[in-house]
C-alpha cells in the first residue's frame, strides 16, 4: 500500500567530472567516514505540521541567546566592586554603584547596538522558555511522551528547569533594583530551609546578604555551567529525536511503522533554516521596538529601596503567586522557627510540581497498562482524561500567574488587592476541578461527533422536507481519507489487574496496589467513546444507501433550489411531481 516515492533517486550516484565540492568531500570522508552517516541522514524524512515547529522556536531561541550572549560578555563586568558612574546617562551620574551595573549602563548607552543586543537577549530568553512550555503542552496533549520517548520527556523537563534557572541568573546579573529585590527574596527562600537555611544563605552570598560575590558566581553559572548543561541536554534531546524519528499524525499512508513527510535536504533544511531566520528576525524586531528590563530607570540595587510592581520574569510567576497567596503560617517551637509560609510555596510546591511533570509518562503507563511503542499521535479529544488533566494544570498555572501579578491586576482593572488574594486562595483548588470536568465532557462530545461523521456522514446543509412535513438534513459520506484518519487510533483497553487470589487461596503480592491500578484504569477510560467496529460501519453505510434509494423512489433526490414559485426562473421542464 505505501511505496517509496519516486523522488528518491533510483540510480546510484556515478562519478562525473571531478569538481571542487567532490574534492573536499573526499578529503573529509577519507578521515572521518562521514558518507555512511550522510547517506542515511541527508534525506531524513520530517513530517510536516505547525505544532512540530514549537520545539524549533525553543531551539532557535537558544542559538540566538548564545550569539547575543557572547556579544554581551565582551563588555559586561561581573563584579560587585563599587565605582562612581561617569557615563552618558545623566540621571545616575555621580552615584556609586557596582561595576556590574555600571557596565550594563555602558552597554545600554555607550556601545552601539549594545541596547539592542541586551533587549534581544532578554526577549529571546522569554521566548525560549515560553516555547519550551508550549512544546511540552503539545507533546503532552498528543501523547508523544509515550514509549519509547519517556526519556526525551525527562530531558525536556530538565531543559525547562535549567532554562528557568538560567533566566533568573541572567536577569540578576545587572545588579539593578528590581533583580536585586529578586535576589533578596531568593535569599529569604533559602533562609527558610529547615536546619541548614542560614548556612546555605551565607555560603551562597559569601556572608551576609548581599555580599560581594553573588554576581560573579551567578555569572559563572550563567555563561558556563548552565549553558554547558543545556547544550549537552539539547544534544541528547536531538539525538533521541533522530534515533526514534519524529512522531506523526495519523492519516492516509501513515502507519506506526513509517514516517511520511519531506526530506531534510532540501525541503526541511530550507523550512527549518528559514524558520531560524524568522525567529531571529522576530526577536530582532522585538528588541528594536519594545523596551524590556530598562535597568537605568530602576537604579542600582540598594537594600533600602524597592519599586511597586516587583515581580520576577514571567516564568517564575507561579512561584511568586504561591508566595503571595500563602497564609502567614509559621511555627515557633523549642527555640526554632519553621516557616511554612515560605518553605511550602517556595520550595516544596515547585519541587512537587516539577516531579509530577517528570514522572507523568510513567504514571500514565502504570494506570493504562499500555507498554506498546507509539509513533502515531493521538488527537487530544481521544485521550479525554489526559487532556482534561492538562486543562486543569493550565488553569492552575494561569491562576497562580494572575496571583503573582495581583497588584498589577488591581491597578489595571480597579480591583481590590486583598480581594484578589482571598479569591485566589480558594480558586486554585476549585477552578482547576471545574476545568477538568468541562474539558473532559468537551472531549467526549467531540468524540461522539467524530463517530457520527463516520457512521452517518457529514451534514451537507441540504434540508429535506418529507411529504408529511418533517424536516431533515441530508448527510453525505465523508471521503475515505478522512474516514481512515478518524479511525486510525487504538481502542482503549482497561487494565484488568491480576486475579486476587491464586488456586490455593493465597493473595497475590501487591494485590491492593493492583486493585487500585485497575480502578484508576477504569476511571481513566470510563467514559471514552470508542471508534465504531467494522460491523457498525457497514450497518451505517447500509442505512445510508437505503435512505438514498428511498429518496430516489420518492423523487426527492432532485434538488429544488427554492425559486420555483417566485418567478425568478422558468419552471417549465422541472419535474417536481411524486413518482411512484
Amino acid at each position: 500500500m505505501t511505496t517509496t516515492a519516486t523522488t528518491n533517486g533510483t540510480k546510484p550516484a556515478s562519478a562525473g567530472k571531478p569538481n571542487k565540492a567532490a574534492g573536499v568531500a573526499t578529503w573529509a570522508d577519507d578521515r572521518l567516514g562521514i558518507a555512511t552517516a550522510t547517506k542515511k541522514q541527508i534525506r531524513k524524512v520530517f513530517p510536516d505540521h505547525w505544532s512540530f515547529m514549537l520545539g524549533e522556536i525553543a531551539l532557535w531561541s537558544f542559538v540566538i541567546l548564545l550569539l547575543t550572549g557572547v556579544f554581551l560578555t565582551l563588555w559586561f563586568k561581573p563584579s560587585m566592586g563599587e565605582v562612581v558612574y561617569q557615563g552618558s546617562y545623566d540621571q545616575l551620574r555621580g552615584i556609586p554603584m557596582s561595576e556590574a551595573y555600571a557596565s550594563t549602563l555602558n552597554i545600554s548607552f555607550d556601545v552601539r547596538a549594545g541596547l539592542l543586543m541586551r533587549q534581544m537577549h532578554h526577549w529571546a530568553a522569554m521566548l525560549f522558555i515560553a516555547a519550551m512550555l508550549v512544546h511540552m503542552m503539545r507533546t503532552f496533549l498528543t501523547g508523544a511522551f509515550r514509549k519509547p520517548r519517556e526519556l526525551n520527556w525527562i530531558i525536556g523537563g530538565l531543559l525547562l528547569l535549567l532554562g528557568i534557572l538560567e533566566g533568573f541568573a541572567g536577569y540578576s546579573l545587572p545588579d539593578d533594583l528590581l533583580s536585586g529585590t529578586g535576589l533578596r527574596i531568593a535569599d529569604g527562600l533559602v533562609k527558610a530551609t529547615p536546619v541548614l537555611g542560614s548556612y546555605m544563605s551565607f555560603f551562597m552570598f559569601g556572608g551576609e546578604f548581599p555580599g560581594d560575590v553573588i554576581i560573579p558566581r551567578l555569572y559563572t553559572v550563567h555563561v558556563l555551567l548552565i549553558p554547558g548543561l543545556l547544550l549537552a541536554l539539547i544534544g541528547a534531546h536531538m539525538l533521541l529525536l533522530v534515533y526514534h524519528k519524529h512522531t506523526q499524525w495519523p492519516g492516509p499512508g501513515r502507519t506506526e511503522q513509517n514516517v511520511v513527510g519531506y526530506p531534510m535536504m532540501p525541503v526541511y533544511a530550507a523550512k527549518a533554516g528559514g524558520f531560524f531566520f524568522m525567529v531571529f528576525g522576530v526577536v530582532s524586531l522585538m528588541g528594536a521596538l519594545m523596551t524590556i528590563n530598562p535597568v537605568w530607570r530602576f537604579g542600582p540595587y540598594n537594600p533600602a529601596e524597592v519599586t511597586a510592581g516587583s515581580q520576577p520574569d514571567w516564568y517564575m510567576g507561579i512561584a511568586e503567586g504561591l508566595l503571595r497567596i500563602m497564609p502567614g503560617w509559621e511555627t515557633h517551637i523549642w527555640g526554632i522557627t519553621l516557616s511554612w509560609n515560605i518553605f511550602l510555596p517556595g520550595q516544596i510546591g515547585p519541587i512537587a510540581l516539577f516531579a509530577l511533570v517528570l514522572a507523568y509518562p510513567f504514571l500514565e503507563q502504570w494506570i493504562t497498562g499500555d507498554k506498546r511503542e507509539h509513533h502515531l499521535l493521538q488527537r487530544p479529544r481521544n485521550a479525554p482524561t489526559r487532556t482534561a488533566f492538562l486543562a486543569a494544570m493550565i488553569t492552575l498555572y494561569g491562576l497562580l500567574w494572575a496571583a503573582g501579578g495581583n497588584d498589577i491586576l488591581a491597578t489595571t482593572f480597579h480591583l481590590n488587592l486583598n480581594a484578589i488574594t482571598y479569591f485566589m486562595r480558594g480558586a486554585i483548588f476549585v477552578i482547576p476541578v471545574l476545568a477538568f470536568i468541562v474539558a473532559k465532557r468537551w472531549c467526549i462530545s467531540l468524540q461522539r461527533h467524530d463517530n457520527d461523521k463516520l457512521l452517518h456522514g457529514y451534514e451537507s446543509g441540504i434540508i429535506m422536507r418529507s411529504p408529511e412535513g418533517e424536516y431533515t438534513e441530508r448527510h453525505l459520506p465523508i471521503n475515505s481519507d478522512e474516514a481512515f484518519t478518524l479511525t486510525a487510533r487504538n481502542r482503549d483497553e482497561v487494565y484488568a489487574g491480576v486475579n486476587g487470589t491464586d488456586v490455593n487461596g493465597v493473595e497475590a503480592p501487591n494485590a491492593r496496589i493492583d486493585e487500585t491500578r485497575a480502578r484508576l484504569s477504569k476511571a481513566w477510560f470510563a467514559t471514552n467513546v470508542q471508534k465504531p467496529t467494522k460491523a457498525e460501519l457497514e450497518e451505517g453505510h447500509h442505512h445510508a444507501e437505503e435512505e438514498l434509494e428511498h429518496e430516489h423512489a420518492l423523487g426527492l433526490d432532485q434538488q429544488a433550489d427554492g425559486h420555483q414559485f417566485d418567478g425568478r426562473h422558468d419552471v417549465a421542464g422541472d419535474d417536481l411531481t411524486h413518482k411512484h
Partner: protein
Amino acid sequence: MRLLTRKITARLSTRRRSRYAAPAVLVAALLASGGLYMTLAPANADKTSDDSTTISEGRALFQVGCASCHGKNAEGIVTKKGNQYGPTLIGVGAAAVDFQVGTGRMPMAQPGAQAARKKVLYDADEIKALGAFIQSLGPGPAVPESEKYDVSGTSNENVVKGGQFFRTNCTACHNFAGSGGALPGGKYAPNLRGVSGKHIYEAMLTGPQQMPVFSDGVLSPEDKKDIIAYLKKNEDTPSYGGFTLGSVGPVSEGMFAWLVGIGGLVGIGIWITSASARSKKTITKGDA
C-alpha cells in the same frame, strides 16, 4: 500795584476749556493715581488670607460644592457607624485645597476608597477662593511659591539627588517610572506622569488621603524640588529601547512576549507548514 498790563475782561481759559474738561481731568487723575498705586504699591495683593472678599467667595463656593460631605464649617461628617464621610478640613491648608481641587479629585463624584484624578470643576480664581476660606479656618501649608517647584534652572546634580530621594521615598508606592501601584482595599497610588510640579510639591507637603506627609522639616523644599526635577527630566527623556509597554515591569513584558512573540511565531509556523495552492492543470514537464 498792578501785575497785569492789560485789562482782563474775561478769564483766558473760558474760551479754551470744553465743558467736559473738568470731568475728564478728574477721571484722568483717578486713573493715574490708581495705576501708580497698582504698579508701585507693595505686592500684598496675592495674600488671600488678607482679602475678606475672597474668603467669603470661598465660603459661598464651599457651601454649594463641599459642605454636603465636609460639613458647613468644614468640621467633617461622621456616619452613624462611626465611619468618616468627609474628613475635617480645619488645618489642612490652602495647599491641600489647591491640590485636591486643582487636580479634579475634589469634589468626589461619589464616596469611595479613593478620590480619582478627573476633570477640574473649578477655575483658578475659585480654587484660590476656596483655599483662602480653608486657610482662614486654621493655619496649614500655603500654596508654594513658583520658585519652589520651577525646575527650569536645576543642575544635573539636583536631578541625580532627586532620583535618589525618589527611589528611597516614592517608588515603593508609585513605581520606578511613576506609573503608580496598588494599595490595600481598592486604593492605589496614582500615575505621576503629566502632573504639574506644583501639584507634586503640594502632594508631598500635605499627604493627600493615604499618602504620607513629607513635611519641609525633614524633606526640605530643596529636596522636594530635586524630586520634581527628576520626574520632569524623566518625562522628557526618550524611551531608548522602544515602546515602554506601560513601564510596570515584568508582568507586561511577559504578556507581550507571549502575545507578540509566541503568537507571531506560531502564526509563522502555521504559514510554513500550510498547504500551498494547487493547480488543476496537469504536469506538462518532467517530474523532479
